[in-house]
């Protein structure tokens, strides 16, 4: 049998009880459009500690338009440290725009205009210096994008050039090592810190990008479909990392993969054509959605 046609290999997972169990990896070919049959088996949520989220970031009546086109329409939403918020919805629903507005990356688009407020720890993001804001709100992209430099320098990138004084490698080492540890990459790269980052595998590159974001100690981490370019094994590793980080960092993840949202998220926001349709606990959104649109989307009716 052609190996490409066989089902993906099972992935080891650490269950809540502590004993390793085997769960099926999400099929790579579905690309977010999970067939009904697959969804019937409710995907296992990754184990997590029970915490009460502390609100870090909030939008109030946030609207964003590109020229005449309204991409986000009066969305009020909040995310706290100790939880993962997943933004789901069909392509073009405004979820990525919403995510990119949280660290004011949308400001780079000349035609974009914003209304309403975005608050970080109760302060309007417009009141921050944009570089300060972006250090407090990190971001991970669809494609792994390490910079063309060594592994060490990638992680140290955000720490350098902060002041007029250039920190030495010895000064940077603790922070870099810690970030690599938290991203679950340290053991794999500890002997190759001076090797070019672009020689790493795709999954390692994405974890390096997580480490790069974590090194500046952000309070919020924005993930824009972080696993869409990765294989199931790497996806599983990244998802475990995300859940492990949620106690220290407030995490917002945009994903087309509904199973992924169920595995990693605590709360889910469903968007459609710029409107926030449904916003609630992950179980509620997926099992007993209030809005008809949400029910159709999570059951594969459209999207």
């Amino acid at each position, binding site marked *: 049998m052609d190996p490409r046609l066989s089902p993906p290999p099972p992935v080891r997972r650490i269950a809540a009880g502590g004993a390793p169990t085997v769960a099926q990896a999400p099929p790579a070919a579905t690309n977010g459009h999970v067939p009904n049959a697959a969804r019937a088996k409710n995907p296992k949520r990754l184990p997590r500690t029970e915490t009460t989220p502390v609100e870090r970031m909030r939008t109030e009546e946030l609207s964003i338009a590109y020229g005449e086109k309204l991409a986000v329409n009066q969305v009020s939403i909040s995310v706290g440290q100790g939880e993962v918020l997943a933004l789901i919805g069909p392509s073009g629903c405004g979820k990525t725009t919403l995510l990119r507005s949280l*660290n004011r*990356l949308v400001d*780079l688009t000349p035609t974009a205009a914003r209304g309403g407020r975005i608050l970080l720890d109760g302060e309007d993001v417009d009141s921050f210096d944009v*570089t*300060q*804001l*972006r*250090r407090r709100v*990190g*971001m991970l*992209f*669809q*494609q*792994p*994008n390490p*910079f*063309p*430099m060594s592994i060490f320098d990638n992680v140290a*990138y*955000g720490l350098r*050039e902060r002041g007029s004084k250039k920190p030495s490698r010895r000064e940077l080492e603790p922070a870099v090592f810690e970030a690599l540890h938290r991203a679950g990459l340290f053991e794999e790269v500890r002997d190759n810190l001076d090797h070019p980052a*672009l020689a790493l595998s*795709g999954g390692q*590159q994405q974890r390096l*990008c997580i480490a*790069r*974001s974590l090194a*500046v100690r952000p309070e919020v981490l924005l993930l824009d479909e972080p696993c869409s370019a990765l294989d199931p094994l790497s996806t599983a590793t990244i998802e475990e990392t995300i859940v492990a980080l949620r106690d220290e960092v407030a995490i917002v993840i945009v994903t087309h993969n509904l199973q992924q949202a169920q595995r990693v998220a605590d709360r889910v926001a469903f968007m459609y054509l710029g409107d926030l349709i449904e916003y609630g606990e992950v179980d509620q959104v997926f099992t007993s959605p209030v809005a008809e649109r949400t029910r159709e989307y999570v059951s594969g009716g459209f999207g």
Partner: protein
Amino acid sequence: MSAHAQSRAPAALIERLRTAHRESWSLGDLVGVAAAWAAGLALCAIAAAIVIYMMVQGLQYLSISEMFSHPLPGLDQSQSGGFLDPILGTVVLTILSTLLAAPIGIGIAVWLTEYGKPSGLARAVESGVEVVAGTPSIVLAIFGLLVFQEGFLSFLSYEATDGVAFGRSFFAAAAMMSLIALPLIVGATREAMNGIPRHVREASYALGKDRASTIRRVLLPASRRGIGTGVALGMGRIVGDTAIVFILLGASLRLESQGDIPGLQVLQGTGSTLTTYVYNNSPAGEGGSPDKAYAAAFVLLAIVIVLNFGIDLITRGKGPSWTRA
């Protein structure tokens, strides 16, 4: 046995597909393919002929002592010395021109790709680069002579009479030569920087970096290969240009220093390069020493081939994974 049978079946299949393919080709396609083959082979033959002919002619007359001795004003070939000065002239002029062209070219490319505002100015800069690229080097040379003869620029060459500058020097020639390399450097750098996806820039901005440090620490290092290719191509053009040297480097076969600023005297002075040396000694010029013209032409060709080899080295291998996506 079974492995043998397996390996045989696809081979037969491939052979059948191949012949079936050929039979179905129309006459026009066959003629086209034949012409493409012929053109490719002819080009290889021409390139080989040039290299082999110059090698035979050049190596026959080339000697180490020629490459390390100064040209002499003898009319007879045996008394006209070597071509050390033209070699040095080529090296000095190429380095000086590249040092001028590379920062300016990279700067223009960075501005065009990363800033480009106002867009009217960006379009004007683009057309400017295109105009410079399309200007024949003899026109650039004449224009340069006009500019550098202005009295206030006499520090770049030396003062002739009545406050008019001589206008011919390594400085003057390098300034105009840099315009030849500039469009190539701008083009290659722009192409490389445009090949960097937007999310790589955004990843840097998302770490709180401003545009300047993103350019310096991420975009320029990621464009190294493109920049290197552009610079090497530009150097190749500089090495091979004759018109600018002929008009703007003075007519002296030897390096003649001018002025009194130590270290800059050579650059203020005049000289020659391999291209003008070949021209002067060939039957087209004064025709004094055709043998030496061949030898110098071979050295020139060798330099250009080495440069091209350098370009191959730069562009070999894979770029960052995100530039291939």
